[in-house]
C-alpha cells in the first residue's frame, strides 16, 4: 500500500475484494484499474452519460461520481457480473434487436436496463425511454436499444 492509500473492503460481482486506493480514486477508476474490470467505461466523467453505470447496493449509480472509499462495505455489480453464467435474456435481446453499434455505451446501457427491469418488469416504451434517460448513445441507436429492452421484458424480464 502506497503512502496515503486506504483500504476498501467490498463485494464485487459476488466476490469479496480488498483494495487499497488513494482517497481521490473514484469507484470507476478502482474497478477499471485496480480490479481490471474494464467493462464499465469512462466517458463524460460528470454523471451525464451513464457509460460508467454500476449497481451499488441494488441501485444503479454513476461510478464516476462515487469515491471508491464511499463504497467501503458495499456490494457492487459491474457489467462483468451481469450474466456471468452466460448471457441474460436482456443481453440476448440487445443482440437480436441490433442495438449495439460502436458499443461504447452498451455496458452502461445493459447495467442500467437490468436495474430498470427489476424495478419495472413490464414497462411501456415511454417508461423505457425515461428509465434510460441517464444513458447516452452517441451513435443515436436509441430506437433499437428501447426495442431490445421491451423485447426482453415481453419475453419474461431481464433474466428470462
Amino acid at each position, binding site marked *: 500500500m502506497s503512502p496515503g492509500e*486506504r483500504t476498501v473492503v467490498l463485494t464485487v460481482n459476488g466476490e469479496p475484494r480488498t483494495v487499497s486506493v488513494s482517497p481521490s480514486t473514484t469507484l470507476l477508476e478502482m474497478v477499471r484499474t485496480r480490479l481490471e474490470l474494464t467493462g464499465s467505461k469512462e466517458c463524460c466523467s460528470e*454523471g451525464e452519460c451513464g457509460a460508467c453505470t454500476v449497481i451499488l447496493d441494488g441501485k444503479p449509480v454513476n461510478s464516476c461520481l462515487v*469515491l471508491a472509499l*464511499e463504497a467501503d462495505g458495499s456490494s457492487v455489480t459491474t457489467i462483468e457480473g451481469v450474466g456471468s453464467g452466460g448471457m441474460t435474456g436482456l443481453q440476448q435481446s440487445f443482440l437480436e434487436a441490433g442495438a449495439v453499434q460502436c458499443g461504447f455505451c452498451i455496458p452502461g446501457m445493459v447495467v442500467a436496463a437490468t*436495474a*430498470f427491469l427489476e424495478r419495472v418488469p413490464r414497462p411501456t416504451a415511454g417508461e423505457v425511454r*425515461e428509465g434510460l434517460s*441517464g*444513458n447516452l448513445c452517441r451513435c443515436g441507436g436509441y430506437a433499437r436499444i428501447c426495442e431490445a429492452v421491451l423485447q426482453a421484458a415481453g419475453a419474461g424480464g431481464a433474466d428470462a
Partner: protein
Amino acid sequence: MSTFDYRRPRNLGEMTELLGRDDAVVLAGGTDLLVALRHHKVRPALVVDLKSVAEVGHEIEADGRRLRIGGRVVMSQLTGNDHVNTHFPALGTAASVVGSVQIRNRATLAGNLCNASPAADTVPALLAYAATVTMSGPDGSRTVPVKEFFVGPGSTVLRHGEVVTEVELPIPTERVGSAFARVTRRRGVDLASVNLACALERSGRARFGFGAVGPTPLVAETTIDELADDAGWDRLLSVTSPISDVRAGADYRRAMLRVHSKRALQAASDQLGAM
C-alpha cells in the same frame, strides 16, 4: 482530481471537529461535489462524508404534524414515498425530474438545497409547502424557513462547519392542492429554464415557489381571488427578476413563468376539486 484525505465520521461531534478545518468540504451524495473536484473548482485537503453520521438521517418519517426528511435522503426515496406522494406531490414530482435515475439514487435533497442553485428543482415545492431547514454545527442546532435559507447563487446561511441535518414539511391539516411545473430545453436530464410549484389551500390562499427567475429561489403568496385578473398575476410575479443566459432569454422566461404558473394553479385547483 487533486489529492485529499477522506473521513467518514460517525456522529455530529466527530463531524463538527473535522469540519472545523478551513480546507474541509462536506460530501453527501457527491453528484455535484465529485464534478467540482474533478474540475478543480474545489481543492479541499479533507472530504468529510456524511454517510455514517448518525444524526443526519437517511429516512423519511411522518412525525405527527410534520414530515421529517433526513439530511441523507436521496431523490429516489422521495419519488417513491407514500407520505410525500399523499401530502406533498409537487415535491415528489420535482424530485423525479432531477438528473437521471443514476443521479437520483445518489443526489440528496439537502445537497440540492446546500448547492443553492437558483434553478434547484426541489426548492420551489419546498417553498410552496413552507418547509423548514434544520442545521447543526459547532454552535449547536438551528432551524430556518427554507425561504430564508438562500443568500444568493451558490450561497446560503450555512455557517462554517454547519450541515443540514433535516428538512421538515408541515403536514397540512386541511386539504391542499399542489402542482410542480418546469420548462427545459430537452425533456430529460437538463437544468430548468424555469421551475415552479404552487400550493393552494381550500380557503383560496395560494403560495408559489419560483426557480431560475432570480438570484435565489423565490416565494410569493396570494389568493385565488387576487389572480382573477392580469394585474393580480403581475403583482404575484413581480418578485421575480429573470435574466438571459445560455438556457433561455429573460422575455421567454417571463412568458413561460406566467403560463406555467397559471397551469400549476389550475392543476392545484383541479386537485382540490377532485378530493
